[in-house]
């Protein structure tokens, strides 16, 4: 802003740096703390006697002979079969993102190019659907899914997540397509292309930045979902987030809360990488709605 022109008073500068340091601790420290703690035994991570035990790993050394242990990870991934949940999550995310984007680009393109009033009403209805908490829809799904015997399967969850994702995907892609000049596809149609050919040969090659950003958010929605997947998938088909929630019910009583800690770290790691590589796209996606109004 004015940083180059105007020198800040020392006091203000100190306050700003102080805020930054506090916020960085609040935002990042919990994750590093949990990552560190996931290599300890429960007696250290939850220590009533002395909190420094987590740092020194006293109980961990006593129980396993080393200051670091991967017991939590082997317990979660092998014994509790977290790998299955990870595989299910991969499948769900892959299909949800692909299908959402396919439907969304078609719809978003049409909504951006149509000049009729009904396109606006379509978007308005999509906005209402987007505001609906997904869990309110679940009691509508269950009786039908039970009757048709499709409850509990991955494809069911994928279709439901795609549908719940649609309003958001449509809005986001609609605003991206609005930014692609209309002359581009219109000149292709003047040259004899049909609407679909113009879309296929002219729009698709230039739409990728918008599609990647929207894809990231679809991925996050599918990856982070708990309300729908917990209610619609049965035990064998659970994705990672509901699986972690079920750890809380069963393993906490068995004294193996460290399985849940390890699973939490394993689930967070891909998100870490995702934010690291796609930070720019995420920021632009978050602000797209705001800055343009």
């Amino acid at each position, binding site marked *: *802003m004015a940083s180059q022109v105007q020198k800040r008073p020392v006091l*203000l500068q100190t306050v700003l740096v102080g805020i930054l340091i506090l916020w960085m601790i609040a935002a990042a420290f919990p994750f590093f703390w949990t990552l560190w703690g996931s290599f300890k035994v429960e007696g250290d991570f939850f220590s009533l006697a002395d909190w420094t035990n*987590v740092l020194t790993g006293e109980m961990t050394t006593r129980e396993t002979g080393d200051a670091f242990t991967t017991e939590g990870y082997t317990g979660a991934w092998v014994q509790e079969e977290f790998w299955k949940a990870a595989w299910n999550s991969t499948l769900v995310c892959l299909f949800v993102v692909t299908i959402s984007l396919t439907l969304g680009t*078609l*719809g978003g393109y049409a909504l951006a190019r149509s000049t009729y009033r009904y*396109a606006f009403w379509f978007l*308005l209805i999509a906005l209402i659907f987007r505001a609906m908490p997904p869990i*309110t829809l679940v009691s509508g799904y269950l009786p039908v899914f039970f009757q048709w015997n499709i409850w509990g399967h991955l494809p069911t969850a994928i279709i439901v997540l795609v549908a719940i994702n649609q309003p958001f995907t449509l809005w986001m892609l609609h605003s991206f397509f609005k930014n692609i000049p209309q002359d581009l596809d219109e000149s292709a149609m003047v040259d004899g292309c049909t609407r679909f050919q113009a879309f296929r040969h002219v729009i698709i090659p230039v739409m990728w930045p918008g599609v990647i950003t929207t894809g990231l958010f679809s991925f996050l929605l599918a990856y982070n979902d708990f309300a729908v997947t917990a209610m619609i998938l049965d035990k064998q088909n659970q994705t990672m987030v509901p699986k972690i929630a079920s750890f809380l019910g069963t393993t906490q009583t068995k004294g193996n809360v460290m399985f849940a800690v390890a699973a939490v770290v394993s689930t967070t790691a891909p998100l870490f990488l995702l934010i690291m590589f796609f930070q720019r796209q995420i920021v632009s996606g978050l602000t797209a709605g705001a800055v343009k109004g």
Partner: protein
Amino acid sequence: MKHSAFFWFVLPSAVAMLLFIFFPIVSVVVQSLHSAHEQVIIEVENCGPFGCTTATAIDQEATATLRQDQPLGRFAGLEIYKDRNHLATAQIGPLWEQSTGIGDFIGKLMNLPFYKAIGFTLTFTFVVTPLTIIFGFIIAVAVNSAARAIRGPLIFFSLLPMMVTPLIGSLILFWMVDARGILGTTLRWLTDDPSLSVKADTGLMWIMLMVYGVWHSAPFAFIVYYAGLQTVNTDTLEAARIDGASRWQQIRHVVIPHLLPLTTFIALMQLMDNFRVFEPIVSFNASAHATSLSWAIYNDLGGETQQLSSAAATSVLTIIGVAILLSPVLIRTYRDYGKAA
């Protein structure tokens, strides 16, 4: 764009939304007006050597046929909405008469499941939203004042609390604030009270849930404000400076008016998102102290006996709540896009 082309382009996503969003809403409304069949009771006469006795028994066969014939259950009208687990219309009157004052009345009201849920949901929504905006703004100003080279990493770490799965983010905080965790220990040391436990205290639990709420959504407000700060008109700022505006006056009269439309956007998004607060209650295992509307639905659906009608009624009430919160957004969108279209 021609009507037919528009139709074919939009068809797939329209069908998806029709089948999996619109129909379920209709189905939820219908279900909330029906309740499960009661079991068919028949009287059986047992005659023995000492005379006859009549006993009542469940006619399994008749019950099964009835349930088969009318899977929706019997029509109950608004009965479910009025029962003790929802609006509790029958209970409120006596409660009001029994209570000594308005505070006492609210206290008693919070024992009813629906009012407990809506009480927390609304408190959460209207406490977390303003705090998110204030913290987001402060962080944005601080990050904006940092050297350009370190802004990338600063933004990276700032995004973490928001991007991480809500269930996981709240679990991480919950483990730290556990009586045996690092924050729990610090709290006990600070207050010098060895028995202090966030899990056991309703007030502390509410505060903890709201702290989580702010931690989770402040990054969103931050990112939007930060992007806004990049587009503040430097010419206007310079003009203000030349005219002798102090630093505070520059912020007050140039920066804040520029960011005001963003504030409405953040507030509306946050109101909608905070209204569906759900995952932290599961992670914090907080249902004894705080419940929300979404949690109430989840609880009805997840129990041993799925109470579909009860869940459906709560869903309808939640949707009405969302609609009320959403109306300003709709009007705004209607004004922004409706005129252009």
